[in-house]
């Protein structure tokens, strides 16, 4: 697609004028099966047309017919990725991004979380961040499971699936495998993602599909009215643990890193600038991005994260990770983390102790052990809890590998001739 056409397509999207001459409201029948052979081996997964389109109109959007070329997502961008880098590489001219605003991402549904719930802040930052990616709304899908956080897709003016408890990563796997061109977000919670859906979370992460998983961690079951969750601390008294929880809690980031997640980050609902930044980094990451957000459930578990979110204490109790920078924290940045053998320790800076001896954050380290160590720094053990990006490495993405296998099978065996398949092997003719 030429650059100017790309730009005009965006503008129309922004102005709500995507309709073209060929578009009508009449459904488009796929009279002909796709000429799969003509498509040839798709070089990259992202450039594949949506299967629903039948391939009949090249890489156009479903049913776009004559407007196929206009609807084509930017090459290599596939509409599911932030555009800046790709477009910059394609043309030197400045890009006019669609003038979508946060409000354009709001659906017409009333938001029904409890007043004061931390979920509002996360929704707001998501809506604020998304327009800056330049990905058309129709190319974004939010998928959730069950729980308070999982109502999220209803509030976004994108495509969405409010699925079943714990299984959102599995829906995302199938959708992304079938439609690599889409940007897919998974919204989950501590119960949804780590308890009933723990298995799917683990497998989505190890496959490294290009999906973004945001886990709202409020350390409680909210929607079922206050039972302890897999992240509730030991001793937590709830309706189902009146004498205190005796289940060791899970730590979301430790699990993600244990599954060799290629992107792992943490933020806090009230820390809105930081949250927006982390969400953007997640969106920009190619591969599974796993983000834990400390989220306050003011009804059933108020102030669970107060130490990390309270303006007065957060600089003492959290440490903002920055790639290549030493781990320094505290009110006046007078404390740091260093390694004593394999053990982390908090040290006071000054009196001969300098930043030089501190642990330096390297989010690109291919070895996940330091990231894992960071995920184990806990408030109750006297450490500041890291926020920001723990790990961001590049690794092959499942949907691309799958598409590459399809492409190479096609290159090897041709486009797939069913008559030839039926007649392969031994046959006989009766006349």
């Amino acid at each position: 697609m030429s650059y100017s056409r790309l730009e005009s397509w965006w503008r129309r999207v922004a102005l709500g004028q995507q309709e073209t001459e060929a578009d009508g409201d009449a459904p488009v029948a796929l009279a002909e099966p796709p000429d799969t052979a003509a498509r040839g081996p798709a070089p990259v997964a992202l450039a594949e047309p949506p299967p629903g389109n039948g391939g009949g109109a090249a890489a156009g959007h479903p049913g776009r017919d004559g407007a196929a070329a206009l609807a084509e997502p930017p090459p290599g961008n596939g509409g599911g990725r932030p555009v800046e880098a790709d477009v910059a590489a394609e043309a030197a001219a400045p890009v006019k991004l669609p003038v979508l605003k946060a409000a354009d991402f709001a659906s017409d549904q009333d938001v029904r979380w409890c007043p004061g719930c931390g979920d509002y802040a996360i929704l707001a930052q998501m809506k604020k961040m998304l327009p800056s990616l330049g990905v058309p709304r129709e190319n974004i899908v939010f998928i959730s499971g069950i729980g308070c956080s999982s109502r999220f897709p209803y509030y976004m003016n994108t495509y969405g699936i409010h699925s079943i408890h714990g299984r959102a990563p599995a829906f995302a796997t199938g959708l992304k495998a079938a439609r690599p061109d889409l940007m897919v977000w998974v919204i989950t919670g501590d119960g949804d993602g780590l308890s009933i859906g723990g298995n799917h979370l683990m497998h989505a992460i190890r496959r490294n599909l290009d999906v973004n998983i945001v886990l709202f961690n409020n350390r409680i079951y909210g929607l079922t009215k206050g039972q302890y969750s897999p992240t509730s601390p030991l001793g937590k008294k709830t309706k189902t643990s009146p004498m205190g929880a005796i289940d060791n809690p899970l730590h979301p980031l430790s699990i993600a890193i244990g599954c060799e997640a290629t992107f792992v980050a943490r933020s806090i609902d009230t820390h809105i600038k930081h949250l927006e930044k982390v969400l953007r980094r997640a969106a920009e990451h190619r591969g599974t991005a796993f983000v834990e957000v400390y989220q306050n459930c003011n009804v059933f578990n108020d102030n669970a994260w107060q130490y990390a979110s309270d303006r007065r204490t957060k600089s003492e109790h959290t440490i903002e990770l920055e790639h290549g920078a030493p781990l320094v924290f505290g009110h006046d940045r007078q404390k740091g983390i260093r390694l004593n053998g394999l053990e982390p320790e908090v040290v006071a800076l000054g009196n001969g102790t300098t930043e030089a001896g501190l642990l330096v954050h390297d989010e690109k380290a291919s070895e996940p052990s330091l990231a894992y160590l960071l995920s184990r720094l806990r408030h109750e053990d006297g450490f500041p809890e890291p926020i920001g990006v723990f790990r961001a490495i590049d690794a092959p993405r499942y949907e691309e590998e799958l598409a590459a296998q399809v492409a190479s099978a096609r290159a090897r065996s041709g486009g797939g001739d069913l008559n030839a398949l039926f007649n392969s092997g031994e046959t006989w003719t009766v006349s």
Partner: protein
Amino acid sequence: MTRESTAAVSTEAPPVSPGLPASTKETIRLDGATVRLAGDSGDGMQVVGGQFTNTSALHGNDVATFPDFPAEIRAPRGTLAGVSGYQVQFASRDIFTPGDTLQALVAMNPAALVTNVGDLEKGGILIVNDESFKAKDLKLARLETNPLEDGTVDDYRVIKVRLDTLNREAVREVEGLSSKLQDRCKNFFALGLIYWLFGRGIEPTLRFVREKFGNKPEVAAANEKALRAGWYYGETTEAFDHSYQVEPARLAPGTYRNVIGNQALAWGLVTAAKLSGKELYIGSYPITPASPVLEELSALKHFGVRTVQAEDEIAAICSAIGAAFGGAMAVTSSSGPGIALKGEAMGLGMILELPMLVINIQRGGPSTGLPTKTEQSDLLQAMFGRNGESPLPIIAARSPSDCFEVALEAWRIATRFMTPVILLSDGYIANGSEPWEIPNMDDLPRISVEHPAPQANGKPFLPYERNERLARPWALPGTPGMMHRVGGLEKEDVTGNVSYDPENHQHMTNVRAERVARIADDIPLQAVDGPPRGKLLVLSWGGTFGACTSAVEECRAGGLSVAHAHLRYLNPFPANLGEVLAAYDRILVPELNTGQLRMLVQSRFLRECVGLNKVKGKPFTVSDVVFKTRELVA
């Protein structure tokens, strides 16, 4: 069929197999025969059974097979639990079952002998490896006496073959083969022998051996030698003074091949995708006996098939729903226990009203049950195995080759009515094989699928606005202006927004049921084979088709007035089924369960039916059904 009644002495020599001289012995012509190869699960009985089937099909016979093997991959050697068998009926006429009784049995060890000999007809040929009846072999099979000597085999024509020694002699010259590998050629020796016995050529198996062991030429050479040696043994041994010949069947003109049920199903899925202009997505988790569907499709990536081996059964179906939302032809395949796990997601697929296929290759239940054995006991699970009111269409395959057509039909219904469709097969037809008249893609009807075009009128898209079939639009992500959210909470009519309104829930429940019921107007009326009214109708479904068809034919040949209706559509039933049932005095419903279809029919049509029910992990024999039919009409 018995040998005595149909045998005719022929003076013609059987056809010469390339590389082999013609048999010089007398040939007896049969119109069909049933052979079972039985041995230890490590003896390779399934491989040679498959070869015998293919060769017979290529010879032009109609064939029907019944592979029967234990759930353990290698149960302890020589034990009763480890016996694996492969039965094939081949004939010069149309056949529908793998045969009730055997005309020939090959038993590789005592365990195989005692567990199978009861199915051999009196006077039938029993070929045994008499070198595997030593004291230790008897002990492994927990036998106190040697069945070759204690009267067990007195009624049969026993052919004792020193299989170990003869096989080793045959393959001795092949260099670079351990004695263990030498012994593993025994099955091909046995195959060679029964090829001789039934006048089959060895050429197709030679091709198979060379292809399969292409990178292990010594193994290929040894198997080839064993095969030839087995054939020559038949020719030279004095134990046989004649061989048998089964002429080609008079099938309808066309080009045929042999297909296994699961293979036909996988090919049907790829074909349905192509006919509807879709790319196929399958999310599945390995489970017996459904795994071959996923395996077969994994090898068909050049057709654009995307296969995901999911982490569990739930993820498998959820990923398929995700793919369906994205516009793919989405499929998940499993067996009963896996379908139980998928229940919640099937309910979601139902309320999302997305087209997809949920395939259940039924096996013996309950729980883990009998994984490698067949049963039809998941019909009620398919009907009701979800929470809430969640009707889904159900369609069942009746034979290995029918799996192909059923896949096409299931996808047609799924897309026309925007619903998951449950496709039932079973272990018997999934593993069984039969000749299939190869279709031409140009002759197969297209499956038309529609997606709404983009809209830019600023109005919200209405995902639950329905057409005349009550189907909602399948709007795909990526389509501008059609952004919408779907989910498992009850949705408001038309808008699809979450709704807790009592009237709306009643309405939506009714509409979802009505939409499935209307499929009855879109499927063929129920056909009946036999008199249009009368004393007895045999009503069957699924994999019992063959046994019921043969049994009804046999009864009618014996002068009884019996009709047969075989159901492909289990939900909804064909529109005329009530009238069909009303035309008969009695209705017999044979099923490999305790009466599931019978329950559905009785409650729907308030018509009392007689059940013929069996849950032994085995298909019906023809005589099972004949016996019951005679009892009812006599």
